């Protein structure tokens, strides 16, 4: 099994009100100078056939019209982690 992590984020240019809300909350907590906060999703999974992950993302995990996704394989079989 291949462990993988799928990062899903709103496409560039689409208003992300969650990110804006987080960004606006930060100065009140003393975190100045943080900009362009975007909130997305992360899905962890184990797949028998990592070749099919992109198709799975296109069809279900992400909506390609509004979201970009990035697949990170964590440990393909016995090899070392590629993207910890």
């Amino acid at each position, binding site marked *: 099994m291949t462990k993988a992590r799928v990062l899903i984020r709103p496409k560039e240019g*689409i*208003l992300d*009100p*969650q990110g804006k*809300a987080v960004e606006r909350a930060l100065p009140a907590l003393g975190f100045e100078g943080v900009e362009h906060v975007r909130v997305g999703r992360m899905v962890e999974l184990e797949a028998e056939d990592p070749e099919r992950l992109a198709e799975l993302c296109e069809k*279900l*995990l992400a*909506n390609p*019209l*509004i979201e970009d996704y990035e697949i990170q394989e964590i440990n393909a079989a016995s090899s070392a982690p590629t993207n910890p």
Partner: protein
Amino acid sequence: MIWGVLQFPGSCDERDALHACSLTGEARLIWHEERGLGGVDAVVIPGGFSYGDYLRTGAIARFSPAMEAVAEFAAAGGPVLGICNGFQVLCEAGLLPGALLLNEDLRFHCRQVDLIAADGERLSIPVKHGEGRFWAPEEMLDEIEAKGQVAYRYAPGQNPNGSARDIAGVRSEAGNVLGLMPHPEHAVDPLTGSTDGLLIFEAVAGARV
């Protein structure tokens, strides 16, 4: 006229939709696991939180057996009305263009709004949603406007969610599939302030292509 109203785990407006449909014909519920629509003349996908709205609103519901039947029904020209969550399901299924995103102000809005239909008629219909901001790329918006697919807009100044170009509802290119965020099924009795919702059900009933 026989209406079928889909019911998913997490649907919550199917009873009002059944009632609204019964005012213009007969109506029956269709459970999400049913593979056929039982010969109905039109389909309503009601509001609610299908499958908990996990992942994205409407994302899981689109893969249900009943939705596969709806896709075939729509392709054959059958009239389909998606309300709120039903609109989200239709967009996820690719039966309607665009997507519905979190409301611009992150608030859940529940109130009566005025809609302007494509023919200029003004309707009073309630909205109640947290993820109703219609969005599509600019070129797609231009295309659906050019093809006359914008069915309803929020009246000026009443856009509750930041929808692009005040769009409240869109129809398919062929015209037989309609989705909108406001709830016509909650506006069919003078008791609740407006019966304008019936006009939308009547329009859908006549939308077979």
